[in-house]
């Protein structure tokens, strides 16, 4: 972190007075009650059959068995994987690309960066409306295609089950790439310029410098970016909900949207909880690697 110039000396003073325990415990309890207690409940709800009104019945693992043969769940799972690979993969590559392009301070670069990450400021609802205008039947994309004499390619992008998912991904990418760029630029700034200069003097080409210096030096940033992207992919909800609500015919359904509509529209709370647990299990690898990393950093210092 570059945030402070203070030296790292940090001696802790004595045994903490009681007031310090209060300062720590109150927020800790708030998080425990507000986050962990519900999360545990969420797991136990997944073993119930319950519509929120009638008394809940125990369902054992039936919800999970039903999930396995639920075609919509299958679609949602597949779409979530596509989302992680395409949304995550393209954000990573494009984010790295623009970070390399815009890493050095030179005239105009601030404006370019701002243009790229301005979308982060907007909500995903705003993003979805902006892009819905673009993908409208008489929107920019179709008009442009007709202008280029490619009228055969025009379609109702968000209403066509073959293209809707990819149209939503384009909108999501527009907002994510700037964020990934910021992470990578922060990482690139951390690379010692002396190494790069030495390689340059030794006559390494731009590609060789990237391949053998920049990319390996970005290793820890890469891990962070990939984790952020996987977690963001699993969490993605707003943009899909605002653009398509998972339709048409579940073609843009993600686990998160399916969970939401199962819970709050079909009112199958136990079944929806089981979907939530699946999302949690998918996120677990990232959560664990994050914690391992945080722990090892704690030990180092």
């Amino acid at each position, binding site marked *: 972190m570059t945030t402070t110039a203070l030296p790292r000396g940090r001696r802790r003073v004595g045994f903490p007075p009681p007031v310090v325990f209060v300062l720590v415990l109150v927020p800790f309890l708030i998080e425990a009650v507000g986050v962990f207690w519900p999360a545990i409940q969420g797991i136990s*709800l997944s073993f119930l059959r319950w519509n929120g009104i009638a008394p809940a019945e125990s369902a054992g693992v039936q919800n999970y068995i039903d999930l396995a043969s639920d075609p919509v769940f299958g679609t949602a799972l597949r779409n979530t994987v596509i989302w992680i690979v395409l949304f995550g993969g393209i954000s990573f590559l494009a984010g790295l690309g623009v970070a390399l392009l815009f890493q050095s301070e030179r005239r105009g670069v601030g404006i370019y960066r701002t243009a790229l990450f301005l979308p982060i400021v907007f909500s995903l609802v*705003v993003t979805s409306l902006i892009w819905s205008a673009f993908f409208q039947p008489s929107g920019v994309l179709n008009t442009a295609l007709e202008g280029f004499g490619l009228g055969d390619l025009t379609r109702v992008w968000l209403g066509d089950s073959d293209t809707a998912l990819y149209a939503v991904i384009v909108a999501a990418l527009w907002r994510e790439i700037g964020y990934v760029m910021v992470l990578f630029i922060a990482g690139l700034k951390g690379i010692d310029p002396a190494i790069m200069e030495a390689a340059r003097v030794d006559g390494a080409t731009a590609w060789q410098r990237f391949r053998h210096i920049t990319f390996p030096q970005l290793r820890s940033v890469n891990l962070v970016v990939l984790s952020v992207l996987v977690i963001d992919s699993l969490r993605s909800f707003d943009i899909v909900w605002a653009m398509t609500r998972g339709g048409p015919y579940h073609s843009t359904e993600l686990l998160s949207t399916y969970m939401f509509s199962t819970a709050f529209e079909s009112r199958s709370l136990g079944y929806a909880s089981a979907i939530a647990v699946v999302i949690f299990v998918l996120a677990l690898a990232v959560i664990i690697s994050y914690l391992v990393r945080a722990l090892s950093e704690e030990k180092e210092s």
Partner: protein
Amino acid sequence: MTVSFAPSSRIEPAVAAPVAAPEPMRRRSRRKAARTVGFHTASILISLAWFAPILLVVVTSFRTFDDVSTNGIASLPHSFSIDTYVQAWNQGGMFQATVNSLIVTIPTVILTLLLASAVAFGLSRFRIPFRRTILLIMLAGNLLPVQMLLIPVTRITQQIGIYDTLGALIVVQTAFGLGFYTFVLYGFMRTVPGELQEAATLDGAGPLRIFVQVILPLTRPALAALGALSFTWIFNDLLWSITLLQTSSRLPITAAVLSLQGQYVSSWSVIAAATVIAAIPSTIVFLLFQRSFVGGLSLGAMK
């Protein structure tokens, strides 16, 4: 409106330029000029492509309904109107929705910063037993997928009678955000030298005084960054709002814009106006806190 990244000025190693440039040097500078032109051309194209969708919506928001429906969104505007804004603001309930969003966002940001800095202070400055465990548990809470919490939290808010109130959103968002804030602030406060604290203790300051008068002022950059960032996160949230709120007059701006989309399904200019209104508050915060905002994006991620 430009953004420069904090530790920006990396001075290029100055190459001693001979007074009379020999032939290869001149060729190199020509190549350099060509590369600069290429860089700016590519960058301008990328920036325009990124900016174009925003421009499209802003322009559409100032067009009349008839103009958009006869000529299409993708046409050049033939009209200018601010009726769309009047309509979105009054009939669309955008005023109420903006107020609702601010009622949720501002207390949540302040509360979370306060609580998180209290934990971070305790954990970073004192030998609290299970220090590391507490920190990791809090971080883990932030990484949990929010979908796990939707149903149980809805049920709990119904049981304690705060379901369908803005207060429920404040409580939930605060609890859910705490982990990340704590993690970032902890990392930041650890870098404050212990000598400052010792000196303050010798002067007779208690922990609360040290917290408020020594540590918090030194943590200001991180607080500003987190505050600016989380303002946009909470202001822009949709999922919790549509889960915990039912009454349409209590909906925050994201949910209101979305329901407006269903209501004015054919009037793109009104929807565009509402979209622009919904984007304004976070844009203002971004402009005010540019530097902190951008720095904040990589807080906690780069250590």
